């Protein structure tokens, strides 16, 4: 319904080149079936996906809306939000004039499943399904190499299998991994990504199997949503402290849907402690905040809402206007509309970079 009522507003903005760095296509197991062996197809039908939480279907914490989606994103022809490409075009891609969208499929991809072998099989099928059912049908859509990240070696093999295929924009992981993301078991992934010249996009979520806080499990969905930022802080800290950026100086990490308002303060904290505890981590050759500025990109959604708008701009300037990339998170409820979500005081040049320039450069879209 927003389609009709927003038409006039859209007209005012059609000159803006927009690359959406976080679009969630709803893959289906049927789309993946041709790419799965009978054994794994039967396994999915019988035992199903089992995340590291209790529920067979659904989520550890109930969402506020069904499927955590915008209520207006259910396709009129049926199916789950973002499962119908025609409706996605109508409501999102064409509506906003989006020239490219990076696909970050969240389920069913098998990432983080209790059964790592299933993850391996599903990752490959999810990648083929993205190509076949999405990218091939609409070249604006870029696929991401889904990897069974808890098996670093198998993940590297999957990355190598897809390397060189320009339909893939990045390697894709989730933020709540079984161990902190800098740990050795994930190193093969980073190595393969760098070899393939692909950034690694890490999206909030997944179930690590550990409680979502260092003090156990929170009670509420609102706490879980807030905790994605703390998990991302842990992830960034780990990647820096484990020295992966010294091993792979060309490694690029995209923090997707993690927010970014917390990033400068994290950099300051790590710098301060590194000054004191340098002897523990001699493999670090520069201050932690320098690694952040050199190796990390952030997507905008969910845009923090500050009391004072200047404060947000200060944060953005610290991170670097060339490191921030617009994302919508379509079809989820905390979706950011490209026309209204960014601070109005950005210059035209900053707007151009954030809406598309930075993403085009990082993902080599041109």
């Amino acid at each position: 319904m927003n389609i009709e009522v927003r038409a006039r507003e859209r007209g005012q903005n059609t000159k803006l080149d927009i690359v959406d760095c976080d679009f969630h296509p709803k893959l289906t197991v049927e789309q993946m079936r041709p790419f799965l062996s009978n054994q794994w197809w039967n396994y999915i039908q019988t035992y199903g996906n089992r995340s590291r939480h209790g529920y067979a279907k659904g989520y550890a914490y109930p969402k506020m809306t069904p499927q955590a989606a915008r209520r207006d994103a259910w396709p009129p022809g049926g199916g789950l939000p973002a499962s119908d490409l025609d409706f996605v075009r109508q409501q999102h891609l064409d509506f906003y004039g989006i020239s490219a969208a990076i696909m970050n499929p969240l389920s069913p991809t098998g990432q983080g499943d209790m059964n790592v072998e299933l993850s391996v099989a599903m990752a490959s099928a999810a990648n083929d399904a993205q190509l076949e059912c999405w990218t091939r049908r609409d070249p604006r859509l870029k696929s991401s190499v889904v990897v069974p990240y808890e098996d670093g070696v198998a993940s590297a093999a999957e990355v190598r299998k897809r390397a060189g295929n320009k339909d893939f924009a990045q390697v894709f992981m989730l933020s709540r991994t079984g161990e902190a993301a800098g740990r050795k078991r994930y190193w093969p992934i980073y190595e393969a990504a760098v070899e393939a010249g692909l950034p690694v996009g890490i999206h909030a979520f997944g179930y690590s199997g550990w409680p979502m806080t260092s003090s156990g499990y929170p009670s509420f969905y609102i706490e879980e949503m807030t905790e994605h930022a703390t998990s991302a802080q842990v992830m960034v800290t780990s990647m820096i402290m484990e020295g992966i950026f010294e091993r792979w100086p060309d490694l690029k990490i995209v923090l997707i849907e993690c927010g970014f308002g917390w990033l400068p303060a994290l950099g300051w904290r790590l710098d301060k402690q590194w000054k004191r505890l340098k002897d523990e981590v001699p493999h670090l050759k520069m201050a932690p905040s320098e690694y952040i500025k050199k190796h990390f990109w952030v997507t905008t959604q969910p845009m923090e809402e500050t009391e004072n708008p200047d404060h947000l701009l200060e944060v953005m300037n610290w991170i670097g206007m060339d490191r921030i990339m617009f994302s919508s998170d379509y079809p989820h409820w905390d979706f950011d509309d490209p026309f209204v979500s960014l601070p109005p005081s950005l210059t035209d040049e900053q707007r151009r970079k954030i809406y598309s320039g930075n993403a085009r450069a990082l993902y080599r879209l041109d």
Partner: protein
Amino acid sequence: MTDVLTEVGAIDCDVHPSVPDVAALLPHLETFWRDSAVERGLNSLDSNSYPLKSPLTSRPEWRNKSGLPAATAKEVGDQVFGRWQSGFAILNCLYGVQLLFSEDMAAAFCRALNDYIAKEWLDRDPRMRASVVIPMQNVEYAVDEIERCARDKRFVQVLVLAMQEVPLGRRHFWPIYAACERHGLPLGIHAGSAYRNPVTSLGWPTWYIEDYAAQAQGFQSQLASLITEGAVAKHPGLKIVLIESGVTWLPGFLWRFGKFWRGLRTEVPWVDRPPWEIIRDHFRLTIQPFDAPDSPEAVERAIEHLRSDDILLYASDYPHWQFDGDAVVPAGFSPALRRKIAIDNPLATYPRLKEDAR
């Protein structure tokens, strides 16, 4: 030359007395527990949160011949009251009694620790105050210990660690907060873990620096829990002090938490005003470490982001090595603000400081 950025007469809200080993507590344990400790070879309750020889745990010049810092009331007094000219110091003892699993043992050791603090520290210097260390393992025991120690007015706060078994907001902890409220004792949450869970949501990190860095995330989780569970709503008189948290993570946390509250309010409808208002009313933060670059401009900007003059408390975090020289307060605080955080804010936060200590 390093800056002298202290405040005469300040209330230093975070000082750490050391306990050399369990032997120091033996005189204060009941007979059974004393004999048990010896018979079972329980010599140490040192926590991994602060490896003894780590540079962060103490400046080299503050260590005695055995490598132990802050070993006596006199040493601490010479630095905090002598050199830095503070008027009072609040002692937060981090000896790992809160890590014990047995409830009864934990309660016994908390009693012994609090008695040790009273006798070996508070009795030796009338300018010293302390936090009651409580056994979170058992809520009734914790309340008992608060009631017991509250009789001694030199105990001005109740101390818990930032990382627990379950989030601090949970309702079964509320009798503890009611006791705090009853006695005018703020709840002091201090960096450190009881190691019931890994120190991060992504498991056990490799390097100690990651453990210490993760404390900032631990505080964020506790803040969210205390507000969403309604612990603060239920105890309107409760003040909560976040001690040794790093401070500058707070605005970023509020921007996200506040944003989600607007849409998810119905999940926790007793949170009836924006989180940043609740935090400015109920929460206070000690200033060391102050996670910001060493530039007055950067520190000023960080203070500005907090949007409150009432929220910060002067603290040296002695003997932890958070700053060089005598720069207890980072350059960038105005003299007026420095004075406010050193005197006014602590007095407003710790009502017992205004009373006669005895």
